[in-house]
């Protein structure tokens, strides 16, 4: 599948802007349970993505995903670099020839499996996977009002990390004390999903 370069550009720009604008919030969340660098790391990564935007926007979509992923791997500086980088690169690799819901769902599932392997983690450990996995279920179901259900799923899933005890990542050092705070990686996943949906909904209205 290949997106129109104009749409591809909008999507990359929107995701990067969203993450960069929320850097302080992500730092604050990470200060509560980790080492406080998630927001700055993600900002640095997506600033690098924007530097290459002119080039990436016109790439075939599979290649664009890989390029975004590689920029994050190289520039983020924390574990979220390889984790988000792997998500984007694996998604790019698995994208279907035709843009069908089943094909995109399969690609997203493959990307999530790659993140699980990279992070040696799964749902319930208070990580980005606690947003991505429920989201993949809603995506596969499809049906009417899908964008708004995806949006709601991402928000509910990020909020659901608040009472969880972290068992992976720096937050796991805190044990019980990680309970009561939203996972910063779950929040950044929610933000990215919302940015993508906003662009797609605008396109649909236009």
């Amino acid at each position: 599948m290949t997106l129109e370069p104009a749409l591809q550009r909008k999507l990359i720009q929107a995701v990067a802007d969203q993450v960069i604008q929320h850097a302080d919030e992500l730092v604050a969340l990470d200060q509560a349970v980790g080492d406080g660098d998630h927001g700055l790391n993600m900002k640095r990564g997506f600033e690098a993505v924007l530097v290459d935007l002119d080039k990436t926007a016109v790439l075939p979509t599979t290649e664009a995903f890989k390029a975004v992923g590689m920029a994050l791997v190289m520039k983020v500086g924390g574990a979220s670099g390889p984790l988000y980088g792997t998500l984007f690169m694996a998604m790019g690799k698995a994208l279907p020839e035709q843009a069908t819901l089943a094909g995109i769902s399969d690609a997203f599932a493959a990307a999530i499996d790659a993140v699980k392997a990279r992070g040696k983690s799964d749902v319930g450990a208070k990580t980005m996977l606690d947003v991505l996995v429920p989201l993949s279920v809603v995506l596969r179901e499809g049906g009417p009002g899908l964008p708004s259900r995806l949006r709601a799923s991402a928000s509910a899933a990020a909020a659901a990390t608040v009472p969880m005890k972290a068992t992976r990542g720096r937050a796991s050092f805190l044990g019980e004390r990680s309970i009561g705070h939203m996972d910063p990686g779950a929040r950044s996943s929610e933000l990215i999903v919302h940015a993508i949906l906003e662009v797609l909904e605008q396109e649909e209205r236009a």
Partner: protein
Amino acid sequence: MSKNVGIVIVSHSPDVAKGAADMVRQMVGDDVPLAWCGGAPGGGLGTSVEAIMTAINAAWSEAGVAILVDLGGAETNSEMAIELLPEERRHRVVVCDAPVVEGAVMAGTEASAGSPLEHVRRTAEELRAA
């Protein structure tokens, strides 16, 4: 090129990485290829996949390279760096599950005796069990 296993030290802090490397160097002299890196791309605490790849290549030995890391992100970034290496090098680099300073000194000492990569890794990782 040395026949001994190379050692790479990866810390979020360049000061920690350099300090640990100094300690290894004092123990083993120039018998072991040794490189270190620390700090995020562009500075600040963190680790850089690119810098880790450069360090692996700098400490490269046909016997392989053992990496010592401090905290989670250093491990994940090191695993990512290994995957981005050329195929023929990828399988001769390991990340040790060991404390960075003590692990580096133990691994360096074992490497200087000419031990194979698996022994070097095991020696560093024995610190975990102790």
